[in-house]
């Protein structure tokens, strides 16, 4: 029988499939093909859910990553300083037996706040886990002037190579150089340079808070993009400008895992008689706002997934109920309830697989296109930045796909289970 043979050759019940699934997978495929617009609608609903999740997580976590980078790049993660000794009221001193004493707390005169033994501190801190860079610095205030009005400026004295790893300067240079800074040279902020109307090679005068005056040649001008930055000189020069001798007044630490900076600070404080504060302690609100952002990203994702799950469910429920009669016919032909359920689950799975793949692909494409948009206003001397800092997080995309697939299969299974339980008699007539 030629037509029978040709039919068998072209038949879809592929011998590759396990026997138990051939009828089910074929029925599912036929349903999807004959579903037409409805199939595409369901696939789009699944895709939309995944797109939203991919998009939102990419945007929020990208923004977060950018924020963290901006903040922690420019900041020391842990700052080590001398503890300001706290005065004790006389009444609290043990062994006080005589007369009336004042309980008033008088602030003591400022103490010497220098780290003389910073070389040892450096050794101890460097040996701690999670510590990347340790930089001894001298920080102070000074007035910068070029003939006219003086401008207040924070001065940081440090070895350029080390300082670059704590707060990048070389990276942000607009002109000149920072590495290999000479003892007579200074690198200043773009804003200050504009105020003083100077450029590289010009000389400016620095009057320190201790009264010392020195003249510097401007070796470089940098711009960090926001606010007014410090002026950078060498450690030796700063020590003499602020009268510290061979001491420093702060040690800056950069760690590998910035969210473990608290532990590093605690370890330092336990080991050494100095105050160690992490960036988290200095900016507690920053961390909590990050956590709030993360939580809202999860919430938005969960809600949009739930919303698309409801959309998928309502379409699938209608399409399954439309097939109640067919389910009855199949049962009358000897199809088991489990066969019918499997067919509908496969149908849902097919929709979910195509929908979530399309969603992930389109979502990533949108995110990629967004990442190409550049900010209209950019920093001086820097390449234009992204308007939307985005992060493609494969883990979240996989999770969103998985959630969409489970929701869709569930939404196909539940009505099919009900329909397969129906008495064929009642649905066929």
């Amino acid at each position: 029988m030629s037509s029978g043979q040709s039919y068998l050759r072209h038949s879809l019940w592929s011998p590759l499939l396990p026997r138990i699934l051939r009828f089910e997978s074929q029925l599912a495929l036929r349903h999807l093909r004959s579903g037409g617009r409805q199939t595409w609608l369901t696939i789009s609903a699944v895709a939309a859910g995944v797109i939203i999740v991919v998009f939102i997580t990419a945007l929020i976590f990208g923004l977060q990553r950018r924020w963290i980078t901006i903040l922690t790049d420019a900041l020391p993660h842990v700052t080590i300083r001398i503890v300001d000794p706290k005065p004790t009221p006389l009444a609290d001193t043990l062994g006080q037996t005589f007369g009336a004493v004042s309980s008033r707390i008088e602030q003591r005169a400022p103490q010497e706040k220098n780290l003389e033994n910073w070389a040892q501190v450096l050794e101890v801190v460097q040996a701690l886990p999670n510590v990347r860079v340790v930089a001894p610095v001298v920080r102070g205030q000074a007035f910068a002037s070029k003939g006219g009005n003086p401008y207040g400026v924070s001065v940081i004295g440090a070895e350029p190579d080390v300082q670059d790893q704590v707060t990048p300067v070389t990276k942000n240079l607009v002109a000149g150089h920072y590495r290999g800074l000479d003892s007579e040279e200074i690198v200043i902020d773009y804003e200050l340079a504009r105020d003083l109307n100077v450029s590289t090679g010009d000389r400016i005068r620095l009057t320190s808070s201790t009264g010392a005056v020195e003249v510097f040649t401007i070796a470089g001008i940098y711009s960090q993009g926001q606010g007014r930055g410090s002026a950078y000189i060498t450690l030796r020069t700063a020590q003499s400008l602020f009268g510290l001798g061979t001491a420093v007044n702060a040690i800056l630490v950069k760690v590998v895992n910035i969210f473990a900076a608290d532990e590093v600070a605690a370890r330092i404080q336990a080991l050494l008689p100095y105050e160690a504060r992490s960036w988290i302690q200095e900016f507690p609100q920053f961390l909590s706002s990050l956590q709030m952002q993360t939580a809202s990203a999860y919430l938005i994702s969960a809600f949009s997934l739930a919303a698309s799950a409801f959309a998928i469910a309502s379409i699938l429920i209608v399409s399954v109920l439309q097939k109640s009669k067919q389910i009855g016919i199949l049962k009358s032909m000897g199809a088991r309830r489990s066969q019918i359920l499997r067919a509908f689950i496969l149908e849902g799975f097919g929709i979910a697989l195509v929908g979530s793949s399309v969603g992930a692909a389109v979502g990533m494409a949108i995110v990629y296109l967004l990442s190409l948009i550049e900010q209209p206003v950019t920093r001086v001397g820097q390449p234009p930045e992204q308007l939307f800092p985005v992060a493609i997080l494969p883990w979240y995309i996989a999770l969103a796909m998985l959630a969409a697939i489970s929701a869709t299969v569930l939404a196909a299974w539940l009505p099919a289970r009900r329909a397969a339980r129906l008495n064929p008699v009642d649905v066929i007539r």
Partner: protein
Amino acid sequence: MQAPDDLDSADVPWPIQDTPPFVIETRGLRKTYFGKVAVPVLHDINLCVRAGEFVAVMGQSGSGKSTLLNILGALDVPTGGTVLINGVDISRLEDNALADLRSAGIGFIFQFHHLLDEYTCLENALLPLIIRYGSVTEAECVRVVHLLERVGLGHRLESHPEAMSGGENQRCAIVRALANAPRIVLADEPTGNLDSRSGQEVFALMREMNRDMGVAFVMVTHDDRLAQEADRILLIEDGHLRALPKGTRRLD
């Protein structure tokens, strides 16, 4: 309760050698639907159908014809009594076993063809085999194609139901009912939705298959003329079954 043999007074066209002698045997079959009020539909039905017999069942709407047919087809289970299909008591069977029983031994033809639009004519006719085995052998396929050619659908193998006429679809449904080589075919007003010429054609085909393949047919019909051509006519009145001598007109 009547002995089953009493019902078989109507003449049987040829001797039956098959064992068990009856493909369908009910004793004291009762069916009650339990809704807000219990509605008894069938009372004490004793019915035996021999292999290869063609039985017409008549009765007014709501008399319980379809309920009986559904129970005989293992689509529904009785409230009381025993129903033996090919010697198996269906009241004891689980859902899956009922499905397997339908798959192996019973074919259905409904008033509406109920072919699946997603499948071609040939695929629809093969569907019972696909459901049962997951695939079709070439021999089975050839057999079904032969059947389709016999009912005049040889040129329609690749057509979809929506492209075929009502008569063609019903003929395809007959082949589908026979695809698994069942011993029983249950037909619920198979000609009810067709014009009289197509109805006559479909009935003639059913009778032909019944004679050639020795398949027992139980056909519910309103058409007196067709019923007269069956081996035996049974009448259901208010849930009670009785034999109607051939030649008598149904009293409406």
